[in-house]
């Protein structure tokens, strides 16, 4: 299955792109996706403890089981206001 990934804020600079997509096995979790992305974009590794993850418009944790077509967002701590 395919999931699309969107990077926000300086995560775009760390990866050099705003969007990416990954092919994953059915049953893969966000944790699995993060491993794949860290291999592809090693700059994400240093940020792993402060990476926030959403699927669609909701926050999700690393054990969330991905579905085909999910739109995942990765970003650093938010700073509104």
């Amino acid at each position, binding site marked *: 299955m395919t999931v699309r990934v*969107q990077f926000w*804020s*300086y995560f775009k600079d760390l990866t050099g792109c705003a969007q990416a997509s990954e092919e994953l096995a059915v049953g893969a979790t966000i944790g699995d996706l993060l491993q794949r992305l860290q291999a592809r974009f090693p700059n994400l590794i240093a940020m792993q403890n402060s990476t926030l993850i959403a699927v669609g*418009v909701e*926050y999700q944790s690393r054990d969330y089981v991905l579905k085909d077509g999910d739109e995942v*967002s990765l*970003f650093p701590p*938010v*700073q*509104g206001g």
Partner: protein
Amino acid sequence: MLRSLLISPDPLDESALIAARRMTGGMGAAVYFSGVVRGSEASQPISAIEYECFRPMAEHQFHQLFDELERRWPVESVRLVHRIGVVKVGEPSLWVEVVAPHRGESFAACQWLIDELKRVVPIWKKPVG
């Protein structure tokens, strides 16, 4: 509870927002917060901050916060404006109004809302030198 949310690149007109306030007879307290861009960031002088927003998620998260706020306090109305894009030093980037019967409730709800938005609403800033 009345709710108004605006995420916009346009300058924020606080006087006009105040003039548009509506309060029914049971309400005694309106609390406002204006967050203004400061002239330095991490001790370096800056001229502006550029705000980036993941808008659909930001709107969803704001409305979840409004839902929770309504459960916690007897607030009649909350209005919130957040600027995005480039906001110059000295200009407001955030404006919040909370209307409630008594001041304790308005202050508590307004402070809670700002604390929470800084925790969950996907907006990021980048200093402009």
